[in-house]
């Protein structure tokens, strides 16, 4: 293949990654924005989504599309409920103290991951694509399903944007994000909101997992890398900003895809991580705010 088409191919692959990444990052950003906590277990909620998708699809025989649609319906709910439960059982008791919350979410990370290892096993397992159509793009063929992934992510992002900007629920979230104490004074039930947001953040990541599994296979260690990338996206895109997150996800997803294709995946991650460090060091208080002592 010549360079031009090759670049196009790499960009398309990058776009698929960017689409899923923006969903994962958005979940992380939502949780941080509203609750002011860093959820280190976020990647594991994504992984949980992936293995449950495998489960659902292996449970449903026949047309893979049925299993896929079923997964799209139930997986976000199961994963969301898991997150709600962990907030209710654990985080709420820590009063969302930043340090304790990080430590606790690391704990949750290991528990979910190792639980997956126990039940799902150590091997990567594939999920069949709901439809298997290849589009001929003149220089190379490209799976139609990958376009579907991009398309679905866009739809979901638009839906989230609508909810955030046009509904009363969105208003409540924005008010809480701005100033939780005042919001509480105006009768917003903060702890319920936190509970829901934590579940929602995980559920959004789970949708990303359902979409990616037919391309990428499910594995119990698959949560680490998207967590790292989502951190990078959220930090570069600015916390709580939907547009910034999507823009940064496209930037990071694409360059990760392209650099990985042309050089090595590790170099791509090293560069992206360096970028974050630089951003954080230049803007020390900009992103996570100053924690009060």
């Amino acid at each position: 293949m010549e360079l031009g088409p090759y670049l196009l191919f790499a960009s398309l692959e990058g776009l698929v990654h960017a689409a899923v990444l923006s969903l994962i990052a958005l979940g992380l950003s939502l949780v941080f924005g509203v609750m002011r906590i860093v959820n280190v277990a976020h990647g594991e909620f994504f992984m949980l989504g992936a293995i449950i998708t495998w489960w659902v699809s292996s449970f449903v025989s026949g047309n893979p599309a049925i299993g896929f649609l079923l997964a799209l319906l139930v997986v976000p709910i199961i994963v969301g409920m898991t997150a709600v439960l962990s907030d209710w059982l654990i985080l709420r008791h820590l009063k969302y103290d930043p340090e304790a919350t990080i430590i606790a979410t690391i704990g949750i990370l290991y528990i979910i991951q190792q639980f997956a290892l126990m039940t799902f096993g150590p091997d990567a397992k594939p999920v069949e694509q709901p439809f298997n159509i290849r589009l001929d793009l003149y220089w190379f063929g490209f799976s139609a399903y990958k376009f579907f992934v991009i398309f679905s992510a866009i739809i979901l992002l638009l839906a989230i944007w609508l909810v955030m900007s046009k509904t009363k629920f969105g208003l409540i979230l924005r008010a809480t994000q701005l100033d939780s104490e005042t919001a509480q004074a105006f009768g917003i039930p903060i702890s319920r909101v936190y509970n829901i947001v934590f579940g929602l953040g995980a559920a959004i990541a789970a949708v990303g997992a359902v979409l990616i599994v037919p391309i990428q296979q499910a594995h119990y260690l698959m949560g680490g890398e998207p967590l790292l990338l989502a951190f990078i996206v959220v930090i570069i895109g600015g916390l709580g900003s939907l547009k910034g997150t999507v823009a940064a996800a496209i930037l990071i997803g694409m360059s990760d895809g392209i650099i990985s294709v042309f050089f090595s995946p590790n170099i791509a991650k090293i560069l992206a991580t360096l970028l974050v460090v630089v951003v954080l060091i230049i803007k020390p208080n900009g992103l996570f705010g100053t924690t009060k002592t």
Partner: protein
Amino acid sequence: MRKDIILHLSALLFLFLLEILGIFSEYHQGNFARILVLAAYGVGYNILFGYTGLLSLGHALFFSAGLYASGLSIYHLDYNIEQSLFLAICISALISLIIGFLALRTIGVSFMIVTLMFSQIAYLSILYFGSITRGDEGFVIQQSSRVFLSMDLSNPKIRYYSALLIFSLCMLINLWIAKSPFGRVLVAIRENSDRALMLGYNVKLYKLFSIIISGTISGLAGACYGILFGYVGASFAAVSYSIFPLLWVLIGGAGTVLGPLIGAIFMFYLIDYASDITDAYMIIVGVALLFVTLFARRGIIGELRFRYYKWIS
């Protein structure tokens, strides 16, 4: 003051007696040698986290800096043990200085994330430069290189004493810091850094010193781990090796001298036991992390100090 020093010295004496009286089985002797070196790493971590109040999520960077500095210099450059240890100390001090200088521009959550990211960069670099580091697979330091003052460090007995020596050294440094005016200022910074600043302390400089001491001790522990147990691999640079010392310190008691040792013994045997039952033994780490954050914030020694023995350092 007196009681305190006696307590810590007798803990060391006890560890010495365990060996000299031959109480250990071979299995536990090996385990304890490992635990002692890891506890030295925990002591290093504790100086930054427990005393200065800075939560790093990237200490595996310092541990592996020492590990690889000594390991690679023995493996590729035929350094002897003294030279490689010296190199490891210098390199980990230098890296702590640089990382500290950069990371201390941030505070709170950003500090945790930045340290995590730095250590990720180190981990990925070790994988990337696989032709030198042998990547994931790692490399073995031959027995013939592991000789110090004509003693064979792979001999279990000598290995145990060496590990105890390293741990004692780090622990005594820790004790001395805890008792010194410098240590008091670190604690003041942990308790209320704004106030410490307004009392006229150069808080940033103190934090930087704390990172350098912490990172160098961690690096020394890493170097000794490679030398005593003969293996160097990328897994020691992975995130879990940043979480372990945090966990040991939390379990044993942050800001206590004996805490890291108690925590390391506890976790080592818990994981050892769990790994006999299941491959998913790391679940223990998760449960333990939740347990300490939810129910035992002070840790074992910390709780003892809070309730009964106020004099424990």
